């Protein structure tokens, strides 16, 4: 039994079928990837697991430690240990980095918050008092998001496109943070269409047009994705050849 199981999940939004009978199982303490082209339904799946507004009415089930969380609100799922790092994190006027991180921290001490900032390569002397607003660059905001997840110490963390808006140097910090999360016992789920991010994963699931197409080790899925998906012109419509 995996720490998190998605069972026969189907979801429609505004009359459109987005996810089709998806079943995935995530091993505790592993780094997983959900890979697929843009529009495949990867983020939608993550939002559904998190229980966000608008993503609650689905068929199937989501289990954490074998128990259904289908009827749990977002904060209930977070308290149970699941969280989400957003592709484009929200910005908050007037809310300092310190306050933002403290809101989610298990250990709310200044020491713990500073340590988490250092781990994502942000200097606490510079960033603690800065607002989590539009004055932060995309990369800075992304690092603050990761730092806030580090202090939360979640059991399962889904990171939606963790490399988007990140420069090459910062990407190294992001990957180091992902490994730190694993080292700390978190199960990490990377939502991505990037081979570079996929390389961080031990296991991966390939989703296309809302359907699970293939699953396997990170290496196997890299080969599959690079060889079959990147050259594919099906535009999120998997053909028979892709599943072969």
């Amino acid at each position, binding site marked *: 039994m995996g720490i998190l199981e998605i069972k026969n999940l189907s979801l429609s939004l505004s009359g459109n079928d987005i996810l089709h009978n998806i079943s995935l199982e995530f091993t505790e303490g592993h780094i997983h990837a959900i890979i697929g082209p843009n529009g495949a339904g990867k983020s939608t799946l993550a939002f559904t697991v998190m229980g966000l507004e608008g993503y609650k009415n689905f068929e199937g089930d989501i289990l954490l430690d074998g128990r259904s969380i289908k009827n749990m609100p977002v904060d209930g*799922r977070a308290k149970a240990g699941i969280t*989400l790092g957003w592709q484009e994190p*929200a910005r908050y006027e007037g*809310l300092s980095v310190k306050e933002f991180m403290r809101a989610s921290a298990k250990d709310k001490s200044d020491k713990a918050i500073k340590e988490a900032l250092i781990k994502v390569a942000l200097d606490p002397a510079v960033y603690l008092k800065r607002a989590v607003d539009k004055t932060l660059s995309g990369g800075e905001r992304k690092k603050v998001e990761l730092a806030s997840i580090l202090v939360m110490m979640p059991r399962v963390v889904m990171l939606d496109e963790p490399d988007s808006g990140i420069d090459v140097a910062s990407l190294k910090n992001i990957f180091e943070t992902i490994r730190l999360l694993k080292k700390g016992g978190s199960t990490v789920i990377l939502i991505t269409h990037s081979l570079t991010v996929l390389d961080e994963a031990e296991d991966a699931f390939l989703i296309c047009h809302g359907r699970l197409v293939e699953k396997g080790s990170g290496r196997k899925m890299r080969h599959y994705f690079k060889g079959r998906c990147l050259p594919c012109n099906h535009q999120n419509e998997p053909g028979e050849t892709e599943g072969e």
Partner: protein
Amino acid sequence: MNNLDAERLYKTAGIEEALNDPQTAHLTISHDKVVSSRSLPGLEVIAKEIKDGVDIKIVLNEGIVIKNPVHMCFGMLKKEGIQRILLDIDIKRKAAISVLAHCIFPDAVKVQHIMDGKIKVGEGASYLYFEKHIHAETGGVEVYPKARVFLSDKARFKTEFELLKGRVGKIFIDYETTCLKESVMEMTARISGRGDDIINIKESGLLEGEGSRGVLTSRVAVRENARAEVFNKLIATAPYARGHVDCKEIVQDKATASAVPIVEVKNPKAHITHEAAIGSVDSKQLQTLMSRGLSEEEAVETIIKGLLS
């Protein structure tokens, strides 16, 4: 008024230490009495007690720069009454001063606080004014802050009005600033209302000097049955004048809010922008905090606290 009352005002405002500092000027008024004051060389303060209030004339002489913020404390410990403060402030050329004003009405059941200010900031001078209100939880305060501000060439005026502690009651802010050449004006109001509070903000700026700049900012949160109306008006008549109006109001429960930004440009080389956002808290902000384990109520509080900080 006795010393114990004064001490209570200072303690509520949290300014006891500053008032004991001989290098810090201050003026404390309780209802219609001047309780204590300290001036500094170059800073003239004349406070005359009038019916239900005090008439204050402040002059900062040319070139004088007051390093420590000047503390003003206007309070009323009675449950009922009127406090009228007439302020005439004249900041002379190249002088600079900042003022921290605390307006404290901790026991008010039916209190009116009326502030009528005339402020002149001379050429190249700077006047920064931060006004913080602390009200009773009863909602029995009516506040009427009014100011007419005139900025000479290259003058700077910045004001922040904050009412976050206790119930608002009713507040009617009415500030007008006229800006001459290359002067800079920033006016900000941050108010949190609940119960049946009424918030009415009227701020306007006239950018009539070449290269003058102005920003009007309003941050309001209303919940329960509170009502907020914000009227921001910025007019630019001179070349290279620049201005921005920025209003954000968060509405919860059965509260209502409105914003009426008026921007007017009467010179093709001037430029004014405005933005307004009214409504519930942003869904993505809310769900992010909830995905970190905060309840909806805690998440809303955190977002509002940030907006009003």
